[in-house]
């Protein structure tokens, strides 16, 4: 879902960059020693997840894990995703430097949305079944919203919105389900082994 260089018009590139900068600023506010390693590990996970590819439709799609990042990091997902995407652009030529802002926004904004929608479920008082469902939904929705945002970015450049968005959403449907499962598994695992990782989020 990385948008390549030269596809989008400058206005969208700048718009995406501004949103990303704002998100990173909010994310970096109040970062302390406890959060930094967490952000680093999840950033690395996000960085590697994009290399796991699933063939679907006319393009190959890959794991994204932005739902997981959003659930654990909240707004801090913005800097984590920015770092991972920047390294992917530099090392693998996925996406590009000029599209970094838009790509980060497309990945990190859904993460934050999922944090607000499902972040309550990570508290220890919540029943396990509810918690698993919410984690699954978080992984699922993050990819869904990302697909819609990518479709929307392409639409603003002149591509017809509905076909583009439909194609992207349809292609990512298997990924959404896989993401949901992976997110639920990871969160469940973390809750078992390191519950304090999930408890200590303050936006």
């Amino acid at each position, binding site marked *: 879902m990385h948008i390549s260089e030269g596809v989008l018009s400058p206005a969208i590139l700048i718009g995406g960059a501004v949103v990303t900068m704002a998100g990173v600023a909010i994310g970096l506010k109040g970062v302390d020693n406890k959060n930094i390693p967490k952000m680093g590990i999840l950033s690395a996970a996000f960085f590697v997840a994009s290399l796991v590819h699933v063939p679907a439709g*006319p393009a190959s799609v890959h794991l994204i894990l932005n739902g997981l990042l959003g659930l654990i990091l909240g707004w801090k997902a913005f800097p984590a995703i920015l770092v991972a995407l920047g390294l992917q652009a530099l090392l693998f030529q996925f996406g590009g430097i000029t599209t970094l802002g838009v790509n980060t926004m497309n990945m990190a904004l859904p993460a934050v949305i999922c944090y607000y929608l499902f972040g309550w479920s990570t508290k220890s008082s919540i029943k396990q079944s509810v918690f698993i469902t919410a984690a699954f939904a978080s992984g699922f929705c993050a990819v869904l919203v990302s697909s819609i945002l990518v479709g929307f970015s392409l639409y603003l450049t002149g591509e017809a919105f509905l076909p583009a968005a439909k194609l992207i959403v349809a292609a990512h449907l298997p990924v959404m389900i896989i993401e949901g499962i*992976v997110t639920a598994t990871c969160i469940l695992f973390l809750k078992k082994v390191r519950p304090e990782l999930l408890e200590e989020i303050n936006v």
Partner: protein
Amino acid sequence: MFKKNRDLCKRITFLYLFPLILLITFSAAPAFAHKVTIFAWVEGDTIYTQSKFSKGRKAKGALVTVFDMEGNRLLEGTTNEKGEYSFKIPKKTGLRVVLKASMGHMAEWKIPVEEIAAAHASQNKTPETKVIGDTGSPSNRAGSKADTEQPTSGSTSLQREEIRRLIDESLDQKLSPIISMLADSQDQDPGISEIMGGIGYIFGLVGVALYFANRRKTQEVRGQRSEVEK
């Protein structure tokens, strides 16, 4: 009893399922790559292009647009089932072949003017252009060497053309595996060193961030201490 069973189930899930999922996802990693690539080469008076997502997944039905170096659009078309698209050289300039696949994937390939000029020259049968072509491709050099050995007359010019055509053909044939090899090498998957490098970068950044966060904290502590001493 029931509760025990459930606990066991959970334990199994964590002990086996989680590593299994990780293993499955990561072992699938090299199978498919992300970006799209296009590779174009000149053969005779035709330009062939090959487009694909990495690891041989062909980019079917993707839009190929051809520009000259000034950015004027010359022609466009869509790739076939094999991700290939070919067209006659539209203009004797450098060409920029741009591929637009779905979902915002884009790639381009530049064909320098020399390649096209050389191809043009080898197609032209007149002796004047042959001299120009001489500086270009090796096929022409070989052709003109054959020329100089022949005395020039009406009947030999036909022979010359024949020889050049044969050489061109056999060269194209001989070079085609090399060209396809080149096309394949265009889409290198991120290697393990790049992946490790990226992870290393991230951990390095964590280290730097922690250093600064810690320094801030120790400075605060020091400040408090000095206040207490006062």
